[in-house]
């Protein structure tokens, strides 16, 4: 049974032992599972989640103009003012950059101009890739708590952390409102649970099996913590018997060889799981040993 709440963008349904609020944001189906039979509360929480997700999407989407992301990307040479949230995101990206020795770089989005992972055999010309390399390099960016200064032609892309960050931010906001209620935030398979459910039950959630073409959903049981998947089995190029993954090495401008098709990591927080999954992809054939060394639960599809 599904009833339409006041806000037309969200949909609320009773799932037998919990409420499920659904909406669409960040180009993904989003759901909020609420371990409560209080319909008003569920509606309120879903509305809160929707607004928080939309706020983050509008602030950091690279497809919009006039937002924070656009303002920074068009401030080359002049510098742009930073708010506290954006500063924290940049600090996080900075940590990921140094922890990965430069493999995780939020300035590498410009490579999309050369690479179109549409399943075809159209590899970019080497010259085209080479021409983009001078526009990549997080180390060339200066920032402090108030301002960011980027060289001419540089762009930031929050795509690698934005959705996972939004999942955590929504989970945090909901948990602040109802700390004793367990909730699961799921934005297209990136998941965060706020706290353990009543009666020690697990949340059961169907997520698209990244290994297949979406025909089978896999059922996942999750009790606490976060979960994120990186990689996309459908985004690749194929030429002369070689499969080119969409995971690009920002130093060479070329796809990482032997990268898994997708990596799923379970960790305390969704954003941390997401970074670990992405770093694992960047390790190519060493993805398994990398995640084993980190001591995190993971699933790798090759």
């Amino acid at each position, binding site marked *: 049974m599904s009833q339409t709440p006041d806000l037309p963008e969200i949909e609320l349904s009773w799932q037998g032992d919990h409420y499920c609020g659904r909406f669409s944001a960040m180009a993904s189906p989003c759901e909020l599972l609420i371990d409560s039979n209080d319909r008003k509360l569920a509606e309120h929480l879903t509305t809160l989640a929707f607004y928080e997700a939309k706020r983050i999407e509008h602030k950091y989407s690279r497809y919009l103009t006039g937002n924070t992301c656009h303002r920074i990307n068009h401030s080359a040479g002049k510098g742009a003012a930073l708010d506290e949230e954006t500063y*924290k995101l940049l600090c996080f990206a900075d940590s990921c950059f140094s*922890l*990965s*020795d430069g493999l995780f770089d939020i300035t590498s989005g410009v490579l999309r101009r050369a690479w179109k992972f549409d399943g075809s055999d159209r590899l970019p010309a080497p010259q085209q890739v080479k021409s983009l390399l001078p526009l990549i390099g997080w180390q060339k960016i200066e920032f402090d708590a108030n301002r960011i200064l980027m060289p001419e032609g540089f762009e930031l892309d929050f795509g690698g952390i934005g959705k996972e960050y939004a999942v955590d931010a929504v989970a945090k906001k909901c948990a602040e409102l109802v700390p004793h209620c367990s909730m699961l935030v799921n934005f297209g398979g990136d998941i965060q649970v706020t706290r353990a459910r*009543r009666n020690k039950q697990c949340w*059961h959630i169907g997520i698209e099996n990244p290994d297949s073409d979406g025909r089978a959903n896999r*059922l996942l049981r999750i009790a606490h913590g976060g979960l994120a998947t990186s990689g996309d089995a459908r985004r690749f190029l194929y030429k002369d018997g070689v499969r080119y993954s969409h995971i690009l090495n920002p130093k060479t401008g070329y796809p990482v060889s032997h990268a898994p098709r997708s990596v799923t990591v379970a960790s305390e927080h969704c954003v941390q799981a997401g*970074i670990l999954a992405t770093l694992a992809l960047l390790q190519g054939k060493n993805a398994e040993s990398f995640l084993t060394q980190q*001591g*995190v639960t993971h699933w790798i599809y090759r």
Partner: protein
Amino acid sequence: MQLNQRNNIIGALTAATCSLLGTPAIAQESPSTAEPWQFDTAILYYGESERVTAVEGVFSASKDFGNEHIFSGKITIDGLTGASATGAVAQPSAQTFTRPSGKGEYQIAAGETPLDDTFRDTRIQLNGQWTQPLWQDYRVSSGVHLSKEYDYLSMAVNANLARDFNQRNTTVSAGLSYAFDSIDPEGGRPVAFASMPLRSDYATDQAFDDAFDATRLSGSDDKNTLDLMLGLTQVINRRTIMQLNYGLSVVDGYMTDPFKMLSVVNPQGLTQDLLYENRPDSRTRHNVFWQTKYALDSGVADLSYRFTTDDWDIDSHTLDSRLRFNLTQDSYIQPHFRYYQQSAADFYRPYLMAAEGLPQFASADYRVGEMTAFTLGLKYGMLLDDGKELSFRIEYYQQNPKNPGFAEPGVLQDLDLYPSVKAVMAQVSYRF
């Protein structure tokens, strides 16, 4: 590459995550997914009307060391006192029995089921189990068990391998366990079918002691148990999980109960003699177990059925159902109903007829006879902060032994040879 030099980046990453999300810094100190120790304590009272009373204390601890590396340990201490049925039949007149130790006697009034009231024991059990993933999709678990009471020692080891399929929706497991039990009862083990000597039949204490000693074997005896278990667990949908197990148990060794006897009666039903029982020294048992758990709108329904059959001809059926109903977010009640039915062992004899020869094996222990039993219970639980839980359970248990078809000669027709056993259980548990 620096990543390979700094093998473990998760600590630094956790710190970065916490400052991004503004979560407390505690997470920085425990970057792994390890969870704190969890403890379960329980105290159980079990009281049969006019028979055994037991008090049991349980303390168990488990810890997830991260990544599903789990240790669990348990200490159980039982104190049992009271009387238990000896296997002898009631008689129209008072009966005298020699105590199992050979020191002293006890009287049973006319019409009463003979109970040995010297039953008194303290048992300590220790269990330890370690479980961890072995490689992708495999889990291995291994454990030890030790149980010690005054005249009994049991030691066991087990190992289990489980594999997840189908994105962890299907789990197949295989397990093996081996147990070694040693028994050394006070007064020694009786010689099979030896006649119980009574002091009044002998002129002197010495003559009686010699006669008693002649019915006893010296030293301990033991038994070996090998169990094999195959299991299949399947997630059916978001609400339903189903489990199917098959178990094979092979026991070899001393399975006679040194405290049980049989009455030898004449055609009038009057006891002529009392013989110590004798059971086969091997037993092979198969069991099949099926369980379904279903998540309801506000609770969990749990239904299970077990069938066992063995080469002693004991077949049993157990139906068990629990319905957990959440009263509020933080409390629940759980009614429990269990029904049990078993057929008698092929060597079960409520008594032996004096005119007939001795069978190869015989026991009058009602526990290997035909019976039905049921349990009715109710549990109330309260969920406290931080995953703590306090619960109370009360149950009523009744065992109804039945005559599997033996003709009752003479006076036995007027006596209750198959008295019901009624018991009450009360338990308080606290998890923290």
